[in-house]
């Protein structure tokens, strides 16, 4: 699996299980940020957060310098009806991973600061309770899931 982790910052305290030899215990991989839709200007980001530490990590906020508004949402389909709801925080259990994917958890990116196209660089700042992950990627053209 291609790891798309970019930078890892320690903001508060220390993180157990993280060393130069072992690599970071908390990281983001398989990042896909889709180009904004023409009418609403909304983009969407998908990725997987992997927590290799034995203790859980809590994602409490996501921001991006390229977008004025960023929110975590979850789409749930029940009895043939899709309902999207905001999510305040996501807990990633120890030695586990949480997937942000189409039709489920996703990051909605709204109010782009500049005109963005496929290939434009976008940075996401994932604020956890005890640390901060910064992920950079380029916008992808939207393609249909097969």
């Amino acid at each position, binding site marked *: 699996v291609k790891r798309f982790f970019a930078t890892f910052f320690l903001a508060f305290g220390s993180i157990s299980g993280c060393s130069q030899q072992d690599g970071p215990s908390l990281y983001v991989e398989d990042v896909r940020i889709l180009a904004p839709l023409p009418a609403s200007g909304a983009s969407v980001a998908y990725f997987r957060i992997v927590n290799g530490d034995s203790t859980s990590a809590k994602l409490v906020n996501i921001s991006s310098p390229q977008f004025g508004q960023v929110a975590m*949402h979850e789409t749930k389909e029940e009895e043939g*009806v*899709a309902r*999207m709801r905001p999510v305040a925080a996501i807990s990633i259990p120890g030695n586990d991973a949480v997937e942000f994917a189409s039709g489920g958890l996703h990051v909605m990116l709204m109010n782009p600061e500049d005109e963005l196209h496929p290939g434009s660089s976008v940075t996401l700042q994932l604020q956890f309770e005890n640390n901060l992950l910064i992920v950079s990627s380029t916008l992808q053209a939207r393609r249909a899931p097969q």
Partner: protein
Amino acid sequence: METSNKLLVAIFIALAIIGGTFFFSKAMQKQNTRPEFATLWPGSVQIPEIDLTSHDDQPFGNTNLEGSWQLMFFGFTSCPDVCPATLQQLALVQAALSESGEIAPKIILVSVDPERDTPKLLNTYVAYFDADIIGVTGSLEEIRKLTSAAGIFFDKSYLDETEYTVDHSTVILVINESGAIHASFSAPHTIENLVTDMPRIIGSK
């Protein structure tokens, strides 16, 4: 047993085998041409008289639904996840059917957010998908006429004090050449399922 009786028994057995094979083959053929993933709507369901507006700011009524097969999806332009993914799937279904020489249905997106989805906005939106997609909007009352007949649910849900999303059914309707609801696909949708079933649905008419 006399020779003539033996002959009669042999002929009877041979006819039984031939007949059985014929009926089994017919039964299998019928089974293979029935939609595998879609649900047929027995007798089709007529859509009540509607007065909507297309993305090119033209009146869109029942006559616009006649004369061709269509795949109708309900969504809105601010939807970041499910709606664009489904429209992209439908665009690929249309292209795949066209390339294989089958009848390629038109794609119709009916907005369930007419408050924000003006014809102008829909025009920009549908052009993005590089397919023959017709965006349709109108008054809430007119849209409800269509959704009620089709059993489509939609409702506003506020994300905060000002921003809202729209909960909506994810079913894809198949509209026949008479402008009636002929079949439907329930989510999760795949390109393969739609490409497999559309010729069978059209053949079932």
